Each structure stands twice: as structure tokens, then as C-alpha cells.
């Protein structure tokens, strides 16, 4: 199991993932924050630019990280009922 840092941007509410150097809109870019997760989360919360920041569990797959819960998979992909608005149509 790996851990991902995620949240929603203040300006747009977009779902973003920590990619090691900054925030990406794409779940596939997310990196395992491992033992640094709590520190990164605290830093993110203190900066007040990412809302609802949280660490989430995921599994590393050849296609990229796959969050453990359906909730986070939907967050990563977009609404499953509007694939035209979906960032990574298909697998949730």
C-alpha cells in the first residue's frame, strides 16, 4: 500500500495530487509520499491554498496509483456518469 497526498485547489476546487515537486491535476502523476506524508500534509494545511487536504491509501499498479476507496477513485477520475468530463475515463 502506498500513500498519496491530495486535496482541492482553493481557486478552482480542482482535485490535485502531490507529484513530488508540486500539484498535478492527474492522479497518474501522484507519488507515494511514504513517511513524509504527515509532514507534507501539515505543510499543505498551513499554507491554506489546498482545501480538504488528506492522505489516502492506494495501490501501485502499472497504470499508476489506484486509490483504495471508490470515493478517491471517483475523485481522481471525475464523475463516472459524465465521461466527457472525466479525466481518466473508465476504471474507478
Amino acid at each position, binding site marked *: 500500500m502506498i500513500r498519496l497526498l491530495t486535496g482541492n485547489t482553493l481557486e*478552482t476546487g480542482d482535485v490535485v495530487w502531490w507529484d513530488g515537486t508540486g500539484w498535478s491535476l492527474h492522479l497518474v502523476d501522484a507519488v507515494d509520499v511514504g513517511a513524509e506524508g504527515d509532514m507534507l500534509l501539515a505543510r499543505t494545511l498551513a499554507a491554506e491554498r489546498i482545501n480538504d487536504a488528506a492522505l489516502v491509501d492506494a495501490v501501485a499498479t502499472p497504470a499508476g496509483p489506484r486509490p483504495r476507496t471508490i*470515493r478517491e477513485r471517483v475523485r481522481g477520475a471525475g464523475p463516472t456518469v459524465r465521461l466527457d468530463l472525466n479525466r481518466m475515463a473508465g476504471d474507478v
Partner: protein
Amino acid sequence: MYRYDGYDQAIVDARVAEFRDQVQRRLANEITEDQFKPLRLMNGLYLQLHAYMLRVAVPYGTMSGTQLRMLAHIARTYDRGYAHFTTRQNIQFNWIKLAEAPDLLAELATVEMHAIQTSGNCIRNISSDQFAGAAADEVADPRPYAELLRQWSSFHPEFSYLPRKFKIAVIASDTDRAAIQLHDIGLQLVRRDGDLGFKVWVGGGMGRTPMLGHVIRDFIPVAKYLSYCEAILRVYNRFGRRDNIYKARIKILVHEIGAAEFTRQVEAEWAEVEPLALDAPAAEYARIVTQFAEPPYDLAASDSIDRSDPDFAVWLDQNVHRHKQPGYAIATISLKPIGGIPGDASAGQMDLIADLAERYAFDEIRVTHSQNLVLAHVRKADLYAVWTALAAAGLATPNLDLVTDIIACPGLDYCALANARSIPVAQRIAERFTDLARQHDIGELKIKVSGCINACGHHHAGHIGILGVDRKGEEAYQLSLGGSGAEDASLARIIGPGFSEAGVVDAVEKVIETYRAVRTGPAERFLDTYRRVGEAPFKAAVYGVPA
């Protein structure tokens, strides 16, 4: 329709300016999210799974073509070309950017709309009968009273921080199309010895602990209903539980102290409140009533309708209701195309409906709590033209109150509170019952789907209710039977263990086929059959246990 006076417009414009300043300070990090969140929620702006969501109030579900066209403009300009009508007769936009929200609200204010009190622990949008003013069975138009409640409750200083949110519905018919027994306060306009007054229910609600309301007064004269509501709110505000969010609604207070004691306290409070002259002056009521004057009907309008187009005739029979005015009818526009998203409408569809309302329906559109739209005053001679235009836009599905007319909350596809997706379940059920002849054979059947225990999809009031739950990070669905939000209100009961998404669709089909097998005939509705035979045959069909 009610039109803002200078005071209404001034307070809405002032709120836009205030919120613009709050947004700028948040974006500049001059205030924290903890400080800002309650401010944005007071303006209907939520942070959902993928973006900010703005909930715009549609008072008692009534709006004009100009207002609906503005909502279409908002969808195109600030969102992604569509919006979602809700079970509180409001509309939600799913993809709002924080920095643009003040401009959006400023545009809304130009057509007398806002998002105030669409969130927070305050009195929310007053809901009503979508057929108000047109229904043949109403004692009077309930909307002037709903409008007075709107004015009384907007920015009410004493009730801006209630223990929890508070919902009021007003109707004027024995047929309940607004689920009043499932509201914090339900008001039914009645006539007693020639006088108008309200029958008052208190303490209904859905959510985690569903309850039906109690009648605490058979009759309160219309001249006194505001002060009586004031007394109810005062008792609730004083004694409602603030220590536990799950026990903070008025239904819990009524349940814990008992309806009789609650009534006694309200009556005692009203004895103090009534002399304070809090009720609306007759002149103010008269001013409002004039704005809900009957439209200039064509008194020579024909009652005959050419039914020669069979598809039109099917729609006519299913989606059109009798109007109190000869020569006119009430047309419901289904936002439930087979496989579509319940309650969603594109900007183009909203523009079209605005055009039709202006041309054929005295410039009025109603939102229903079942997530459909209504043209309340259409000449019968114009129904074919309306249907033709609706059909071309995918808006003429003839399924009102049938198995595919499903209420569904946004669920886990959008909502940050949801545990499971609601919309795909509704879509799969609708697709399973695509055959219109089968739908008509099944008859009235109200399926309602919620993605979490908050019950925005009204699953407790579904003839068949479906609740999405979280099972170790995956979705599961509980099936309930026997609910009703109508005048024969009842709460649905869970019939057994939950299912997967595919499993719950199969289970629904088994329930419906069992109904067809055990009903006394096509005239016996699903709900009546369930009440007659109980859950046993349905449980046996679904779980394979003996009836």
C-alpha cells in the same frame, strides 16, 4: 409571480458585494479556510468532490423565462453547460470557480435570484406544490403564503443560527405533491367555515432518523400563521439539541419530549408572541397577492385536443394534468430520459424551456421536488406545439410517476458526503424498464435513490427506496419498500441485506415482478399491494427465503 421591491433588491445586491469582499480576502490568504467556509456556505457555495458547487434558490420552485435563461447563461459561462435540479426545488451548478462566484451572483441578482440560505443552519428555501395556482383541487394559491414565509425567514436575525437546518413546505390541496409530512414544518392551507387557515405539521424529516410529522394544530387562521411559525421556531431554537449534530433537527426534539408537550410549549410561546404584531399587515399581504394574480386566460380556449398523433397521446395521458381553468392544462417536462441523469438539464434545454414558457405558459416554470419541470398554464390547443418542441430536445419522455421517473441525489459522482453513487443505479434501473408498455403496466411506482444517510434522494419516501452505503471502501445498496411522501405518507422499511450495484437492479426487478404477480389487478398500485400483502413475498423473491 412575485417581483422584488427595492428592499429585496438592495439586500441581495448588498450580499453580493459583501461576498465579493470575503472571496477576495480568502484568495489573498487574509482569512483562513476555517474562517471562510461558513461565509461561503451562507451563500450556497459548497466544496464537493471535484469542484465548488453553487446551489441557487428557486423560491417555492417558481421562476420566469428570464430567470431560467439566466441559469442557462450561468451554466454556459461559469460551469460546463448544464445544471442539476434538486429535491428542494433548487438548482445546482457543479463546476464553479471560487474567484468567479461573485460575478456569477451579481449576474443572478440582476434577475432577482440568489443563493442565500441554500445552506447552513437556517430556514432553507420554502417549497410548495408545483401545481400551485393551477391545480383544480386547491382551496387557494399557496404561493403568496410561501412568499411571505420567504420574506419572514430571509435574514431572520433570531433564526440564522438554528441548531440545524430547517425546511418548510406549503400546500393547498388534500393531494400532497410537496411531501409536507416529511418537513420540519408542513403547512396545508384549508378552508374552515369559510375561513382560510393552515393545518400545521411539525417534526417530520428524512436523513439519519426518518420521522413523519405530527399535526400540532388543525387550524391557524392565515392572518396568524407567521407568528405561529415564529413560536415553533422559538421553541426549537431554545430547546433543540446543539450538542449532537445527529440529534439537532426539530424532529428529535418533538420525539424526545412528545408531540403533546411540544404543542403545549408552542401554544404557550405563541400566547407571548402573537400580541407582538409579528404577522404581516393586511396591506403587505394584499401587495403580495396581487403579484400572484391569475394570468390573463383566454376564456374562449377550447377544451378539445387532437390526439391523432399516438406518441403525443401517450405523453398527454402521462405527463399532463387537469387545470382549474377550462381550456388549459398543466404539462410536466420529464428530466428523466431513459439512461439520463435525473434532474440534469443542459443550457440549451433550459433556453428552450424558457422560450416555451414565455410563448405558451404565461412566462412561468415550476421545479418539482421530483426533479422535473412544469409549465403550469398551457392552452390545450398549444399542447401539441409544446410537446413537439420538447420531443425534439429530448424532453418529452412520457414517464411521470412511472418506474423510470426516479429521484436520485448527485451521490458519489459529485457529492463529498456521499458513500455510493446514486445516478448509475437510477440509470441502470431505467434502462432495465425501457419498454414503455411495461412501465405503464406497472403503473405508479416511485423509486428514490440516496447516496448516503442524509437522504437527499428521499429514499425513505420511496415506494422502493435505495440507500447507498460504504462497505470497506466499496459501494453497497440497501433496499427499502413501502415509503410515500404523499398524503398517505409512510416510511420505507429495509427488507434485508444489501447488494452490489448490479445486484440491487436485479432485486428491484424481482420486487416489481412480484408485485405484478400478487396485485389484485392493474388498478392496484405497487404501494397499495405492498401495504396489503406486507414484505414477505417481496423478501422471498429477492432473498430466496420462504414467503
